[in-house]
């Protein structure tokens, strides 16, 4: 059973040099963040995740490192499995393996990778997760699926963590059900069916009521696993401020949701330190959500809250 203690991650969007990225990783560690996450897109200015996380792990001692999240369609799962097992081995077991079905239309178009309909991408992701887990386990592995064919392969190296925590996030029933069955960490995210993370459709899928519904989907699919799952949210809007109202009105206006919804929505943490702490406790109460990931731009302003809640 998961203890629901709070922990916090930092999603990296910076890292313009060896020095800057090294300092970011060490700072995240020293401020008490649990995990540094690196996203996986072509079109944004992101570092390549497996490489960047390897560097981050090498320059820290305890910081966990996570992919946020790997687009399954970008690499063959056998290639991914080996890179991730290597990362886990050489970080002494600090990997969190975030993987998703792939969604960002621009990535696919620019790189000339076929963008199949969501159902196909999710089915392929499910196969990939089976393969990666199979290669992490002892002994040779064979899998002949719809999308991949792996024959008699003993995945090397084996990861240190048994099991490596998988992180799967999403905003729609199919993907959340897959997460509930396969992952240790479930990300309760926006619905990204539009292919655009900032669309009104994505924003409306993040209201508290929509979140209730998602947690319900997770619970239904997880059955008796639900208590073992760690539930995570990506908090894109962190404002430590005495004037929450003004900021929340701006967010509400921009995304077409009510101010009250914006106040409680998982992607928003707006208010004084005390208000944010209270809000995080409410979210844990209501949704069992205990793992929150902020953008690296907020690493300092959010640090006092991490100091108060991490491990509590």
């Amino acid at each position, binding site marked *: 059973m998961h203890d629901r203690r709070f922990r916090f991650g930092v999603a990296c969007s910076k890292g313009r040099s060896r020095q800057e990225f090294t300092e970011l990783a060490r700072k995240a560690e020293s401020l008490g963040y649990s995990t540094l996450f690196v996203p996986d897109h072509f079109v944004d200015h992101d570092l390549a995740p497996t*490489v960047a996380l390897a*560097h981050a792990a*090498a320059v820290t001692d305890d910081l966990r490192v996570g992919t946020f999240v790997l687009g399954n369609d970008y690499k063959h799962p056998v290639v991914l499995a080996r890179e991730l097992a290597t990362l886990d*081995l*050489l970080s002494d077991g600090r990997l969190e393996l975030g993987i998703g079905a792939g969604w960002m239309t621009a990535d696919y178009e*620019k790189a000339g990778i076929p963008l199949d309909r969501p159902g196909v991408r999710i089915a392929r992701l499910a196969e990939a997760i089976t393969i990666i887990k199979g290669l992490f386990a002892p002994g040779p592995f064979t899998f002949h699926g719809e999308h991949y064919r792996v024959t008699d392969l003993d995945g090397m*190296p084996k990861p240190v963590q048994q099991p490596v925590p998988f992180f799967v996030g999403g905003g729609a029933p199919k993907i959340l059900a897959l997460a509930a069955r396969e992952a240790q960490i479930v990300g309760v995210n926006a619905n990204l069916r539009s292919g655009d993370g900032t669309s009104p459709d994505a924003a409306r899928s993040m209201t508290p009521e929509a979140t209730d519904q998602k947690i319900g989907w997770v619970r239904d699919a997880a059955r008796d696993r639900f208590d073992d799952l760690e539930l995570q949210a990506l908090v894109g809007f962190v404002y430590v401020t005495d004037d929450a109202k003004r900021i929340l009105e701006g967010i509400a206006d921009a995304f077409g949701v009510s101010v009250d919804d914006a106040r409680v929505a998982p992607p928003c943490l707006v208010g004084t330190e005390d208000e944010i702490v209270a809000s995080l406790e409410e979210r844990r109460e209501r949704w069992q959500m205990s793992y929150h990931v902020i953008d690296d731009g907020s690493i300092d302003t959010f640090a006092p809250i991490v100091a108060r809640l991490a491990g509590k």
Partner: protein
Amino acid sequence: MKPFRFGVQVSQVGSASEWRDKARKLEDLGFSTLFMPDHFGQELAPLPAIAMAAAHTTTLRVGSLVFDNDYKHPAILAKEAATIDLLSDGRLELGLGAGWMRTDYDQLGLPYDPPAVRVDRFEEALHVIKQCFTGEQFTYHGEHYRITDYASWPEPVQQPRPPLLIGGGGKRVLSIAAREADIVGINPNLRAGEIGLEAAKDSLREQTDRKVQWIRDAAGDRIDEIEIQMRFFITSVRPDRMKLAEALAPTFGVSPEEALESGAALVGTEDEIAEQLHRRREKWGLSYVVVGDDNVDEFAPIVAKLAGT
């Protein structure tokens, strides 16, 4: 004539601390570069491992020997390579090949296309990767890859790009390498899909002479910019080299003297090996010497003597 430098190809590591110590040791001993292969047997994945080796060191160069083009989309590989180059402050050497190891393809369920197709695809990938390294937006619609309005990020620290290392044993790949690469690796011809007797025989002196000629013919004026590299598989620092040569000779089907001159062998006392390397540099232009992980200690005095000269 290029100064000598030395690389070590490492494929297995037990733990995080062992890896850190190994990288630092190679740096301390004066080796230029830590290379990792890219296969699906006992080997670690090269990318995260060399990224970590670079993080643990300050001057050691890190590289792939070599990435198999068929395992990844070239735009992804380019981004990963540029990220290593950025986070290592410009210490990547990007080794690329068209792919050859049959067992990898079978185990992954990847089609093992005829060599000509793999090499065609490889040439397209090279074009894509070079474009990615410019950081400029580009479009490329080839037979195998379709890139549209894409600008890769980050830009590598080394400009115009991290050194490209292309190795091969056949005329076509070596000619591509001579035209496109900064480092040309002379390998046995691996058309059989495995390292066996055919590959061993293809590394004899006469065959190596011929490969060097292909490189010179294709390189033209570029020849002076290119570093020639060889990965030595039969390596031993020892006093009685003829004894080993006599044992090897029947396998190659040549005399013991000829076995010693094989492009895959580096056997003898420290002085004999140094003399042999000088001769090979004179004759083949070979200046970049790569040995295996097991040879690090015995080769350290040779590295101390020759590196940078």
